[in-house]
């Protein structure tokens, strides 16, 4: 596993009010090499705290966190790691170019960074401007550009799409897709579950500091929500008997199980209704996550 959490818990030291805030209770998941893995949870669930542990900014109180099989505090674990935080935090007095140069040297390179370092986030023409002149979206793109610097083989992105306009989100999605296709391991958190469904093959869902699900996205989506059947009702004497309210010679009925579908089709045939179409609806990731959390909440 490239990133591995085993029963990771994090409790902060006692604060001035005598409390010991619990950030994480028991987070377990694994991200294999070359996998695009989504990280999902409500605000305050522990996504950013987990990510901070993964990049070596925090140590777990209990359990173990590994990056490339090593303690994330180990320098070797962080070689080839690209990270972008959830909220852009850059030196606004520096220019984009100066910021790129700083991170280029922190990666251990001598000399100037590549001229095209900002091309990928479409900021090359603004590289000499101070970051204070950047919009929020531009600063976020620069933050992503820093994460991509040096062509990392592990990308850890904390809500990379938040606050971006549709064009910016599309750019981030494209970059994630390209990096993943190029063999990089991508681990990112997002509240936009359609993005995770679209980009990731695996997902971890956490709630209140505890892992609720970790595995393949399609396994979480699982079964069907229902079947939507459209009938031609022009030759049906009593559409109401089939639960239909015809309009313009057609009626629609939605059933939520396979057995109910078979029963409906048999009765429709007997009644002389012709089937125009059957659509099987799968749950979205959002529906699946909501259902998962609802099931696990006492």
């Amino acid at each position: 596993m490239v990133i591995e959490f085993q029963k990771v818990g994090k409790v902060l030291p006692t604060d001035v009010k005598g409390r010991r805030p619990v950030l994480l209770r028991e987070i377990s998941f694994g991200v294999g090499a070359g996998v695009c893995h989504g990280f999902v949870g409500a605000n305050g669930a522990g996504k950013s705290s987990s990510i901070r542990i993964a990049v070596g900014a925090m140590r777990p109180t209990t359990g173990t966190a590994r990056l490339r099989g090593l303690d994330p505090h180990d320098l070797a674990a962080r070689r080839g790691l690209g990270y972008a935080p959830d909220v852009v935090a850059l030196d606004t007095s520096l220019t984009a170019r100066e910021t790129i140069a700083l991170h280029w040297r922190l990666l251990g390179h001598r000399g100037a960074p590549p001229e095209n370092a900002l091309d990928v986030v479409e900021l090359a023409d603004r590289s000499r401007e101070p970051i204070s002149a950047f919009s929020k979206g531009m600063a976020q793109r620069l933050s992503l550009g820093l994460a991509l610097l040096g062509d990392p083989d592990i990308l850890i992105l904390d809500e990379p799409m938040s606050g971006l306009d549709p064009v910016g989100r599309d750019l981030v999605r494209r970059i994630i897709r390209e990096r993943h296709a190029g063999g990089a391991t991508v681990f990112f958190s997002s509240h936009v579950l359609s993005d995770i469904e679209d980009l990731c093959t695996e997902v971890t869902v956490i709630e209140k500091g505890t892992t609720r699900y970790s595995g393949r996205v399609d396994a979480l989506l699982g079964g069907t929500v229902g079947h939507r059947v459209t009938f031609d009702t022009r030759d049906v004497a009593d559409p109401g008997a089939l639960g239909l309210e015809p309009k313009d010679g057609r009626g629609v009925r939605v059933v939520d199980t396979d057995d109910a579908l078979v029963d409906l089709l048999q009765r429709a045939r007997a009644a002389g209704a012709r089937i125009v179409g059957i659509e099987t609806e799968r749950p979205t990731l959002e529906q699946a996550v909501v259902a998962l959390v609802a099931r696990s909440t006492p």
Partner: protein
Amino acid sequence: MSAWFLAVAALTRATTTAIFRSRIYVGLIAAGALLVGLALMLAELAVGEMVTSLVDIGLAFIALVISMLAIVNVCSNPASNSNPRQVITILSRPIERSAVVVARFLAVSALAVVASLLLGALLAVVVGVIGGPALALRTFVAALAGSLESVVIASVALLLWSRLGTTTALTLAIVVFLLGRMDTTTVELLDKGTFGPATPLLRGVAHLLPHLSHFDLTAWVHGGGPAPAWAALYAAGYATAMVVLAARLYRDRDFT
């Protein structure tokens, strides 16, 4: 090791640039220049001892401004290692945390020295006009050597910042600065046993606090007192100890 030096150099450069472009830095230097002007006005009130008063008040004002500059910039500067998220981004790189601490210290110390050069030169020019070039030169050297006080207090602020939040570190660093300035008085009170049974404990604490009176070189300017070399030695030893300790504490800090 070369990677460590590379990281220190890159971070020092970025931090220096950020502080140099900040309003706090420019504002404090402007405040220092105004205080040199105020020193001249106050010195005019000291009949017959105008030059002496100008040197004494001017050097005191410069030392105060430069030390505040050091404390404020260590604890709350806009550079890349103040905001927790900026820190995490920096620390996600394959660098030792000590590089961040050392770079911050070097950047703030360098800018404190630059500020004392500027303000010391201004004071020396004013002193030179009234008291002659020899006194002006000694005043300039004293102002420059006085910047070592800011280096020491920067190292103390760094130690506090390595584990504490901005406001707490800033407040405690100012308290340490004030206590360090009163070191002579404190030692006298301890020698008299003023603090009763707490005296041994307080004496221990007083030993750990920086003795900033070493950097008051007004006596040397007027022809007496120890040479600045002693101040430089003390500053180097004390600051090194503080930076090493700060780096050790920063290594285990959690960024939540």
